[in-house]
């Protein structure tokens, strides 16, 4: 039996040798789906916001909406004082940061943490990545209005 096995093995080896040197074929096709398609779905962050228009007096409907979003998605980590919880407190945030910075931090946190030095500093302090809370640019604008109210604007 053993001898027969060796016989087979030799045959196989011979064949193998005979075939070596032939260029291997690459896998013919890549998957059809573009990963970008997945990233562009509505549950993920939107594109960079470059301009934000502010108006006075405050839009009270937006303030209310922003307050509701705060309760649902922000309050766990951000206080309305200057005290840090998981992330920094919101007091004076509208004085320290530009409106576009705030909106992009809410809607484009991955981009901000990759590119923005101030955002990176905050990550070093807090050590928890600010989560994507699935907030649209329009909703983020309401959150900004609520922040302005929190900072005493009328």
């Amino acid at each position, binding site marked *: 039996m053993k001898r027969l096995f060796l016989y087979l093995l030799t045959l196989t080896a011979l064949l193998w040798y005979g075939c070596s040197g032939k260029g291997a074929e690459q896998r013919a096709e890549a998957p059809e*789906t573009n990963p970008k398609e997945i990233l562009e779905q509505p549950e993920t962050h939107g594109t960079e916001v470059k301009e934000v228009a502010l108006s006075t007096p405050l839009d009270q409907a937006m303030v209310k909406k922003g307050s509701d979003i705060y309760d649902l998605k922000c309050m766990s980590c951000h206080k309305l004082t200057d005290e840090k919880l998981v992330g920094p407190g919101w007091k004076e945030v509208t004085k320290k940061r530009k409106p576009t910075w705030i909106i992009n931090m809410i809607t484009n946190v991955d981009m901000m943490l990759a590119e923005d030095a101030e955002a990176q500093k905050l990550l070093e302090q807090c*050590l928890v990545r600010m989560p994507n809370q699935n907030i649209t640019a329009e909703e983020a604008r309401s959150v900004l209005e609520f922040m302005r109210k929190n900072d005493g604007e009328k």
Partner: protein
Amino acid sequence: MKTNIINSIAVAVLAGGFFACKPDNAGKNGGSEIAGDAAQKVYVAPGKHDEFYNIVSGGFNGQLSVVGLPSGRVFRIIPVFSQFAENGWGYSEETKPMLNTSHGFVPWDDSHHVALSTTNGEHDGRWAFINGNNTPRIARVSLSTFRTDEIIELPNSGGNHSSPFITANTEYAVAGTRFSVPPDANADVPISSFKQNFKGYISFVSIDKTTGHMGVKFQLKTPGVSFDLARAGKGKSDGWFFFSCYNTEQAASLLEVNASQKDKDFILAVNWKKAEEYLAQGKGKKEAAKYAHNIYDEKTHSATSTILTEVMTLDPKECPGMLYFMPCPKSPHGCDVDPTGSYIVGSGKLAAVIPVFSFDKMQKAIAAKTFDGDFDGIPVLKYDAVLHGEVKKPGLGPLHTEFDGQGNAITSFFVSSELVKWNIEKLEVLDRVPTYYSVGHLCIPGGPTAKPHGKYVIAYNKITKDRYLPTGPELTQSAQLYDISGDKMKLLLDFPTIGEPHYAEAIPASLVEKNTKKIFKLEENNHPYVAKGEKETKVVRKGNEVHVYMTSIRSHFTPDNIEGVKMGDEVFFHVTNLEQDWDVPHGFAVRGAQNAEILIMPGETSTLRWKPTKVGVTPMYCTDFCSALHQEMQGYVRVSPAGSSVPLTWGTGKTPTAEAEKKTANAKPKLNTPKVAMK
């Protein structure tokens, strides 16, 4: 003898090998075991995606696994008919009703066949269906959440094997009973009265086009035989369904011998459009039955179980032209319809040929009444009148057939342990490759549909033996991937499977991955115990029940300190994951919980029931590494003796801010001031 066999193998290997060295691309590596470029063909580079999802039945583990092809990597296990320790399926209060049946809670079932939803006979990427065999059921799994959305039990059934094959537009999933049984409502009869009292029930389970919701539309009360497998017609044969059956001897004991007597059993052809007509004419009869219908709601994150009490039945004796038997040698197993719908391939487990039936000939034979008598009142068509032809000497023990979309079929042979490719029109064997060992089911992507995607065939083997590192008496189950893009089938890869790979389908990733659900939106969460934000967190006592409305976010629970629980209480932790980012689940465990743990997806609410067994302070924590401060995600519950006067209090962190207090002013109980200082 042995020497002769080995010599002939050697010759075969040699011949194949010479093929492999031919300079042209045609037929390269024909017959040899492993293609020279196999590694490149199955290599999916880090970060790249596979081409196909392979949705694989776990057989006796009652689950589905999701595998990538060509890499063979396992991505997920989807619990269906079995409790699952990884995510709390069947343990959490929300999912327990999914495993409810007319027999009560059944924690583990044997599942067999996968059917992916189709539109016009082609994959549409919406749902996967799978059968529960032991306690007969059909489940529908969402291909956007990869969760089991619905399970319906089947009355008047035993061994739901011939299931859940679907019609071309997913109008129905079928369930043919493997065990003929007396009707549930009158089942206390002698086993010896099989021929008089036992029926082979076939259920047609309707599927709502939009919601996917299932219902038993009608059951056919066919003669007492064993239904094995089935496929729907498509194209010209749409409107028909074909079921293989064995035990036409109608034996109730020692079937191994007693159900293998006849030269031919049957394939049952069902004109289901005709059945619908009879139903519309009022020929249906409602019968008493008891079966569970369980639905999981994505918005309430909860399942409900309803027990139904009657089922519509059709008696073939009152419905002429609805059923026909086609004789099929011998104890047929697979019963597969080619992509055009013209041919029905029977696979007699004990037969030396593969009979291929012609749908056109069948129609002619029906019109001309070319019958060979009847079986219990159902016309039996003449074998020769419906036969397209037989594949001669294909191998031993044919089981299943799939199609490559190029006019060819590939059939699995259990006994001779090989895959055999043959041409459907010409009935000629084109190629054969060995499998290691004893292949059962096989799968070509889109193989059972009107438009096979081809490219690969996967053999799901019944025996593993020496193919992997040994792990004691119990070995991994195994699958093998072959390239079928050329004339010859070429082995590319062995990969282990989860549970017994009891049939599978494969579908291009592009049809599925674009629909994948990433999070559950908090705004849409309608769970009765949701806490939408920390201001809604609270602890409520209702008699002996304590309901904790809890939230989790990286990385803390609210509340994380609870006092006032007493011995004899039942505590329900309703944990809402406030995260809205993809792939950020939180876990929850409490010491001594006799009901496992739970894993909560972003935006979801899930409930762990805990009945304290000891007085004292009990730790609880997050079980899924969620952030750099995951190890800090923990808390305490104080349990006091029954009758203790410790008040019910709770909280997280330091004194709430003025704003938070204002916001919580309406919430009834006062926030407990904290014992744990936050940094």
